[in-house]
């Protein structure tokens, strides 16, 4: 499968961006950067710390105020709700003053869905993300892993067309990480959700992504763009997994060092 054969979710064109503002002498973080991300797939963005991964996520989620160039989401993904950036810190996503259950039902209520369909939908998300036991608790009184799962469940509650996950899976413990990977794969397969997975973790990319983009340092460039065409669910024994892993390791090693 090549990259170009799916419909585009978002097109980044000629983007330049620098945290230092306009008048810096240093090289900008992004300079004339282009990237097209396909729809209804999982695209992993990899690279070393400081390589601009999170910046790319914020750019995609519309959280960067001033940059040059264009970020164009396709028509059905154009609403800000439909390409939501989930911050590394889940506290920025949920509302601490609402219980876990209220956190998940609140966006749906604000989007004016029918109350009875909301209840069933909220119960499903609570089950899917193993939050039923803490449903009536306030999120800051739950574990870090539960907070992370709540952040994702809250965003998924409004059925976004695309989500950008920033170092999200690494914040989960091993047991729930697999659960969330399975859930994410399900929504991509069933609902055609687009996922951008920003990660430094090779295993996460290999387990979930259809495509893996490796970023090189300042100004950010694309070191490699690899299709990971493996069946789901994946683990180390999946045929082709080791080959894909070796290929990625090679690029990461040469690109970063």
């Amino acid at each position, binding site marked *: 499968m090549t990259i170009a054969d799916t419909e585009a979710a978002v097109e980044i064109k000629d983007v330049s961006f620098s945290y230092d503002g306009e008048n810096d002498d240093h090289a900008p973080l992004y300079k004339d950067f282009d990237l097209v991300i396909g729809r209804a797939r999982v695209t992993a963005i990899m690279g070393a710390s400081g390589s601009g991964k999170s910046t790319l996520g914020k750019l995609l989620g519309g959280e960067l105020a001033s940059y040059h160039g264009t970020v164009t989401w396709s028509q059905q993904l154009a609403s800000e709700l439909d390409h939501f950036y989930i911050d590394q810190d889940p506290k920025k*996503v949920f509302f601490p*003053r609402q219980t876990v259950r209220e956190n998940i039902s609140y966006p749906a209520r604000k989007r004016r869905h029918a109350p009875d369909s909301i209840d069933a939908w909220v119960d499903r998300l609570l089950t899917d993300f193993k939050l039923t036991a803490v449903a009536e608790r*306030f999120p800051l009184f739950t574990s870090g892993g539960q907070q992370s799962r709540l952040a994702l469940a809250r965003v998924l509650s409004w059925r976004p067309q695309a989500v950008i996950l920033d170092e999200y899976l690494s914040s989960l413990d091993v047991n729930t990480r697999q659960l969330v990977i399975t859930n994410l794969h399900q929504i991509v397969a069933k609902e055609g959700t687009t996922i951008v997975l920003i990660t430094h973790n090779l295993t996460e990319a290999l387990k979930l992504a259809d495509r893996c983009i490796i970023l090189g340092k300042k100004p950010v460039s694309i070191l490699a763009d690899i299709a990971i065409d493996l069946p789901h669910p994946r683990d180390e024994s999946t045929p082709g997994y080791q080959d894909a892993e070796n290929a990625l390791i090679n690029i990461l090693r040469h690109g970063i060092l």
Partner: protein
Amino acid sequence: MAFFRAKIPALAIYVGIFVAWWLVTAFGWVEPIILPSPRAVGGAFREMTVNGSLLKDLGVTGGRVLAALVIASIIGIPLGLFFGYQKKIYEMVEGPLHALRSVPATCLFPLLLIVIGVGEKSIITLAAYPCLLILMVNAATGASLAEPSRVRQGRILGLTPFNLITEVLFFEALPHVTSALRTSVSYALVLVVAVEMFIGVGQSGLGRKIFDYQSSFRIPETYAEILVTGALGVALNISIGLLEKRLLRWLPQTANVGKRSS
């Protein structure tokens, strides 16, 4: 039992103070005009409780403090949240507001007497005024420190500016507002009692009575009123503490989410 054991050192201090009080009066080390005996103060307390005057004073002063706090909250908190939402406007008025806050409220009392006149209104207005400023500034600070991601999410979920203020900014500012309420309670009590000493509307109120009893050298009664005023202060502080605990039950004491100011 553990509860009582933990409280024993604190209780011991109160008992110690009481014993010291009793000793210095019983042995005549202090003139009764300066410090009457516990028995005399207790007698005055009993008499004023039986004839109902103490309860009335407590009700009048407590009522004025609560009225001042309610008025200050109703005006100050929404106004502060609005300023936190419209930061541009707040930047314009912030300077004058802080200058205003630095003027002791009591300075304004003579002016209030001209504008409002001697009466219940001028007492409550004077007490409400600094509380309003404190609550407003803290609500504005809290709202402007709101987590931008949550505010943005509220906005893209389609919240109207009004709902953004009531459903997002209000809660973001709440830790600041409750600590402002704590400060306000002390201010309100101090001002109400002080102003009651100046003008005796209806001749009741703890401040009025403290002043009157002292003027007529009824020192045990003066002490009884002072002790009741202190108890009112303690009760108000405990109430605010309970209210804070209830309103912020979603916020762990150690959380840095609300950036609690003291």
